[in-house]
């Protein structure tokens, strides 16, 4: 029983944090939001060079052979930076799915290239009404209940669906699917699609934790600098207590996230309950952090004068992605209240 991170995990997380801060500065985020970013390709190549885009691929496919806990820490930092490109979908969902289906030649071939800077895989899943499909996407994985397809960008027609978070390039997708794109069907496809959902939700939770951290930090910085009635507003208890409450919610989302990640997004009863719990706890924490941060910022928070709204919008979007709150709350209620989950303190870790 050990619930601590390794030095390597911490180091990788802090290295990526520094990189993401550099690649996603306020000016960059603003530029990307207005569709005039010239650094999108640079960002993707930098994370690819760090090995992050294929970090969950086995070593024989050129990956780092790392696990979901390692990637959860990276996704958390991606959230914290409002990283514009779909790192979680590519590295956290698509790559493990290809690894799971690596006995299929097309899947194995793409898996071996997944760490390259020129490769960006989008994921279309029944759980999401729309698909993240940025300009640089090269491949599309389509996860359906009975079939998994792998298509090239050239075979994909995307109708843009503008998101409140302009960094999320959403689209309704129509792809030419058929025998030539099919990589799994039946039970195998079902299993792959189910795991894709668990991983997508897990890493959306991780990003939400990072966003909550960022928004609380923005509010703390603002409250220390902004003076009213002759003192920094952060010295008043009304502000302190609101931010402390947001921090408490955040602190209790983290262990759930890491515990869910340690099960790797498995589809067991406990694994699914943990993923839903993590998604709810993390997105609730981000929601409270966002609302609190906006109130602390006052009118500033309602404007483009400060950056808060970029992170809030990402948090709103992630709350609905990979199973919205209704989906996860209903799933969890049914597991917990209807008897699937073993109850009691001795079952937290020792249960299937």
């Amino acid at each position, binding site marked *: *029983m*050990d*619930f*601590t*991170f*390794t030095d390597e*995990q911490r180091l990788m997380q802090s290295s990526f944090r520094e990189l993401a801060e550099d690649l996603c500065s306020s000016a960059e985020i603003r530029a990307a939001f207005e569709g005039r970013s010239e650094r999108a390709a640079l960002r993707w190549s930098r994370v690819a060079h760090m090995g992050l885009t294929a970090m969950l691929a086995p070593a024989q496919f050129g990956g780092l052979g790392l696990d979901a*806990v390692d990637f959860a820490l990276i996704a958390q930092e991606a959230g914290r930076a409002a990283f514009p490109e779909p790192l979680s979908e590519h590295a956290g969902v698509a790559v493990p799915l290809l690894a799971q289906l690596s006995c299929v030649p097309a899947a194995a071939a793409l898996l071996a290239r997944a760490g390259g800077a020129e490769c960006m895989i989008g994921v279309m899943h029944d759980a999401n009404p729309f698909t993240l499909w940025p300009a640089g996407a090269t491949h599309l994985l389509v996860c359906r209940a009975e079939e998994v397809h792998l298509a090239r960008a050239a075979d994909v027609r995307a109708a843009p669906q503008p998101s409140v978070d302009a960094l999320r390039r959403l689209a309704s997708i129509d792809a030419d699917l058929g025998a030539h794109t099919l990589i799994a069907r039946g039970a195998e496809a079902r299993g792959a699609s189910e795991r894709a959902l668990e991983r997508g939700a897990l890493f959306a939770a991780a990003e939400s934790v990072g966003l909550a951290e960022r928004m*609380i930090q923005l509010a*703390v910085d603002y*409250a*220390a600098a902004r003076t009213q009635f002759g*003192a*920094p507003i*952060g*010295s*008043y*208890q009304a*502000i*302190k*207590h609101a*931010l*402390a*409450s947001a*921090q*408490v919610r955040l*602190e*209790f*989302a*983290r*262990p*759930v996230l*890491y*515990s869910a*990640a*340690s099960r790797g997004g498995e589809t067991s009863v406990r694994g699914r309950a943990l993923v839903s*719990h993590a998604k*709810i*706890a993390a997105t609730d924490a981000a929601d409270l952090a966002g609302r609190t941060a906006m109130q602390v910022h006052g009118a500033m928070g309602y404007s483009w004068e400060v950056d808060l709204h970029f992170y809030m919008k990402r948090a709103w979007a992630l709350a609905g992605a990979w199973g919205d709150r209704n989906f996860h*709350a209903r799933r*969890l*209620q049914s597991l*917990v*209240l209807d*008897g699937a989950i073993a*109850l*009691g*303190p*001795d079952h*937290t*870790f*020792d249960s299937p």
Partner: protein
Amino acid sequence: MAIDLHYTDEQRAFRAEVRAWMEANVPSTPLETLEGAKGFAQHREWERTLARGDFGMVTWPRRYGGRGADLIDWLIFEEEYYRAGAPLRVNQNGIFLLGPTLMEFGSEAQKARYLPRMASGEEIWAQAWSEPQAGSDLAALRASAARDGDHYVLRGHKIWSSRATFADWCFGIFRTDPASTRHKGLTFILAPLRAPGVRVRGIRQIHGEPGFAEIFFDEARVPVENRLGEEGQGWQIAMATAGFERGLMLRSPARFQSTAQKLIELYRRRARHCEASTGAAVAQAWMDAEAYALRTYMTASRIAAGAAIGVEASVNKIFWSELDLAMHRTAQSILGAHAELLGGGAAGRAAAALDARDSGHWLEGFMFSLAGPIYAGTNEIQRNIIAERLLGLPRG
């Protein structure tokens, strides 16, 4: 090491040992409330039973009546303790708060004198922190300890001392430097409650029992060796004790996981009477109790790896106190018109419709849960601590 959330074979064996012992020894009928004289005596006897089973305080070294278990074993012990429905720990102020404080600040002689009798239930402890004009602002305290040869002479008025009505000893901070103000000039002292110059007056709590008390010190003499740490070090030691109280020791997760489990079982029996949002509240209770457990295992792992816990204790205290209140409020709402019953009434239709354990039990827990956001430092004070020490906001 990396995250590995599996118990070792030794930990599983320890769980099995505790479970077997609890099944054989936990009283089959619940004890009376420990806030009254009769129940207090029953709970004191239970502490002796625990000690005979070598379970008085498993994390303490052998020489002090423990068995040298680590924090993960402690959490396992607590899980089995609550699973078995064992009685509340009447000596919690001693074993959970003063005990760890003695380990850190006590002399070898003090540890040998006090810890074994604490672990065995022979001496039950109360705390003597608050005073009538020093509650959240504890540093405003006035009770004094004047040095007189090899004794201190205690004068003053302490209040809200849990279990002092029936306990044997108390620990608290007293002003040893009459010229001092605020956090300076305070000293941590252990004092017998049944001694000349000490008068204890029980205060009836919301449930009607004298669960806490005020203590009047009128020239009570205690020997100098009852001082913990140095003169003037009292505030620092008291804050360490408060950290134990808010943090890991006082409220282990199993307590809340157990309550969440009972709440789910109650909900299942009454689901058809409940509106939809009740199910959501029950599921939230399960999630929060699990989250508290997961976080506690995380903290225990960090401590095992050499970290010290600080402001996390305040984060925990807010979470468990609000969770406990939310769970009991949900239970009361599920019980509806049965919620007001104290229990012990005539058997009849009510008893048939609801399990006997529902009646009164949840009400008692609900009333106690109302105290959670107040004791061990109000949640408002905890939020100040989080804002200033964790978030770095400016002091007001």
